[in-house]
């Protein structure tokens, strides 16, 4: 099997960027709602995370690194199963491409969690799963169709929230695998606002960039 990166910082950065990418509802929840005909504004109140479906933000914060990774991995494994169920309930003619992408992303995230666990010395607990993407989950009883859509919507909402929380935890990880830091995150966010670049008029008078928001 391919070796994991031994660069903790690089791996941590990959984890954070993965989560930043996956927490965005446009990657999964929004397409799902469009596909299921659930208006985002109208059903925003109904499409909320069911409490207890995913570990809370506080619960994640209190976990140690290995436990956090273990929790993260197991939760993602559950998400994989649930996504498979959602895929089964979708009309056959309306394949949701984002579902497939999300599953691959989750597998990638789990791979990085595994690698981070290796770096932290607890990889045996997070042995690679044999469930390849697309593996059919065990059949579940079919609820009411609308309720099923709402459940799916709530689940995905919780999924995105969970990733957001997990990303915040990762952002508090220090620059070294040996120390646990709880101070402010050091990883910049992709959408962080950036201040205006200082004017270079003194050096070069030709161009000046105007940033737009």
């Amino acid at each position, binding site marked *: *099997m*391919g*070796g*994991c*990166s031994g660069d903790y910082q690089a791996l941590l*950065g*990959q*984890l954070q*960027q*993965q989560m930043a*990418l996956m927490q*965005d509802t446009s990657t999964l929840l929004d397409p799902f709602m469009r596909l299921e005909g659930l208006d985002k504004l109208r059903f925003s109140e109904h499409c909320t995370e069911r409490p207890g479906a995913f570990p809370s933000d506080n619960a994640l914060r209190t976990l140690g690194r290995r436990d956090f990774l273990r929790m993260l991995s197991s939760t993602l494994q559950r998400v994989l199963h649930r996504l498979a169920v959602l895929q089964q309930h979708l009309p056959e003619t309306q394949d949701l491409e984002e579902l*497939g*992408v999300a599953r*691959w*992303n989750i*597998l*990638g*995230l*789990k*791979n*990085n969690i*595994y*690698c981070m666990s*290796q770096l932290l010395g607890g990889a045996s607990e997070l042995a*690679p*799963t044999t469930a*390849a993407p697309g593996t059919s989950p065990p059949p579940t009883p079919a609820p009411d169709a609308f309720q099923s859509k709402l459940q799916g919507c709530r689940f995905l909402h919780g999924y995105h929230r969970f990733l957001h929380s997990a990303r915040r935890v990762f952002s508090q990880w220090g620059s070294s695998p040996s120390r646990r830091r709880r101070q402010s995150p050091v990883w910049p966010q*992709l959408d962080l606002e*950036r201040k205006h*670049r200082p004017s*270079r008029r003194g050096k*070069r*008078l*030709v*161009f*000046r*960039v*105007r*940033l*737009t928001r």
Partner: protein
Amino acid sequence: MLTLIWLVQALCISLTTASIDELLHSCGHINPPSAVVQCGSNFTAVCVVKEECMDFFHVNANYIYWKTSHFTIPKEQYTIINKTASSVTFTNIGLLNTHLTCNVLTFGQIEQNVYGITIISGFPPEKPKNLDCIVDEGKKMLCHWDPGRETHLETNFTLKSEWATEKFADCKPKHDAPSSCVLDYTIVYFVNIEVWVEAENALGKTKSDHINFDPVDKVKPSAPRNLSVSNSEELSSILKLAWSNPYFKTVARLKYNIQYRTKDASVWSQIPCEDTASTRSSFTVQDLKPFTEYVFRIRCIKADGKGYWSDWSQEASGITYEDRPSKTPSFWYKIEPSHVHAYRSVLLIWKTLPPFKANGKILDFEVTLTRWKSSQLQNYTVNDTKLRVNLTNDRYIATLTARNLVGRSDASVLTIPAFDFQAAHPVMDLKAFPKDNMLWVEWIAPNESVSKYILEWCVLSDKSPCISDWQQEDGTVHRTYLRGNLTESKCYLITVTPVYADGPGSSESIKAYLKQAPPSKGPTVRTKKVGKNEAVLEWDQLPVDVQNGFIRNYTIFYRTNVGNETAVNVDSSHTEYTLSSLTSDTLYMVRMAAYTDEGGKDGPEFTFTTPKFAQGEIEAIVVPVCLAFLLTTLLGVLFCFNKRDLIKKHIWPNVPDPSKSHIAQWSPHTPPRHNFSSKNQMYSDGNFTDVSVVEIEANVKKSFPDDLKSLDLFKKEKPSTEGHSSGIGGSSCMSSSRPSISSSDETESAQNTSSTIQYSTVVHSGYRHQVPSVQVFSRSESTQPLLDSEERPEDLQLVDHNADDILPRQQYFKQNCSQQETNPDISHFEQSKQVSSVNEEDFVRLQQQQISNHISQSCGSGQMKMFQEVSAADAFGSGTEGQIERFQTVGMEAAIDEGTPKSYLPQTVRQGGYMPQ
């Protein structure tokens, strides 16, 4: 019976089956059964033949031989392993793909194939190198590698990829692209993936180095979309760009390349990379020119520079906002003739501002005219670029401004001087030269302060007027190029006028070409004057339309028909040239070429011929010759005149009077005798009667060399005649007809004639059958005796004819006057006149002869003449004295003209005797 048939059939089937079975069973095999051999290695194949086959064919391993395709392998490569096995070995195998067969010779000569295998050679796969992958955004990941050397075998490449926790399906390249493969699963960013390539063929298996990367670092983003450009009314120097980033922007930060150019430019300018090193969707470009159209394009890449640049976006263009004109328009004037007294028609002209100076669309121009020392203003708003006004002869100040949507330009001020203004202070050392495909003008500024310079130029042509264009330069400029649409090979007349505060200065002009070329046609040369040894050529200057450049020089080429061509270079200022050292009376071909700095062109060829003589040369030869001849003649005449006594003495020596001779008794009726024998013979006959004495007076007109020659002949004869008392008179006597009359002395006289006689009888034989009327005697200078044939008896008999018969013959001579010859032989007339002792009858006869002679002078030969003398006398009878005199004169002149010596004495023969004259 039926059973028997069945048994036979069964037996046949059994035998056939046995035979087929024997044939189908191979007699042996080759080990290895198939072979893929590496090039350069050794290979050994062993053929094992079954013993039963050996026994059946009665052969052993020695009978085995090997073949590759159709060629038998030499036995040196065989090895007999045992009775049934033989091997063949190939060393250092090259590239091959062939069949190897094991064969035996059955019964010593029948070739029997035992077994065959296929041998293929090649190379094991090399380790794939340079494995790399690229993720085209929105597409699958593509990995490619360098497969190494050609293996010549079927080689399979397999792209393998895996995560730490996942192993992906192998990727098999397509046949048309064996060194690349597209992974068909979804690429997950921020997860390291390990990729490698395995290559495998019959000779081996190898794999490339593993590469481990995050696919996000191999992304080639999609190009930014929807690029738009907008301007700002507040700032005319900026343009705002906006675009849509690719989806990859949500995955990773981006940086950009933004390039721009003006619409008409081809070279792109790029905004510094550090200004576009972060993710953005807009950018403002500053410091652009107002009212100028710019074109932009943009591309992106992951901010850390890993991955690949996207393709360029579609181009978008925008125009910066207008600004007030930044420059004043070029402003000039021309004064045109006016019919109104005390007014001038002034044409004010100006140039439209170029876009980079107009900074917008020029709406109109405003012209203001102010009379000197007057507050009265004349304002004009013009949309055109010229304005014609009538101004007084006073000085005026004209101002011009251009207006666009934003504002007005500064004013151009121009002083129109008064009518009596005297321009001065021109530019100095004006030069014009082409450089970089532009025509540059350079000058030295005058010492005075110059406001601006006006450059005017036009094309010089013989066919069209000089339509000028112009431009304005600042007063600080002393070198510029003409910003017009100039044409090559055209002569431009460039004028530079400095403009001072009080008016224009004097103008200076110069001619120049943007680019010279050889003349379109050469000069036409012609001759102005052609002499014996030289020729003056002239030609016209080429028209400016065909010069195509400055004519630097001419070359004259001239040659003869057979000679080499000679070239002469002539300065371009000349229009004629003198070719010297030419050969007289020779045809010359000449042509002329005109040369500019870029080459020359020949003109048409011109041909001329030098005369044989120079002008006046003939006169120079003829005149002196004539003068010399005339002088010689005069000298001769003078000599003759002075020495006439001597000449007379030589030509007409004193002849003794025969009447006073004591030797013979003069008897005019004595029958003629021709006795040209010696004196003794004459004495013996006693008939010395044919003597006449002629006294000839020397005449100046007769002083000719031939006469002198005759005189010499006389001298020669003198010794022979001196012994006789008669002298030359004797000869005269002997000129009568002699043999025909004294036939008894014929033999004797003939002998005498052959020795000494110089006289002969000339008998006119007449023309064809016409009979001459009289026989005449003439003197022969020849010492050769006359032939008998010349003295035909029938001719001599004619003498006996009567005078009555003469008249018709005379008529004949008149008819033959077509060939008139001047007979100079008339000396006998004078001789006759001077005969001292002649009777009257003879004198009358003489006159008749003279009249007759006049006819013969104009009609015939000497013989004819003598014939006419007689006939004329018979025909006309006695003539007047005057007539005779006239005939004498004519006869003498004719004798002078003829110039032949006629020194004999004419005598008339009368029937029955000899008549002395």
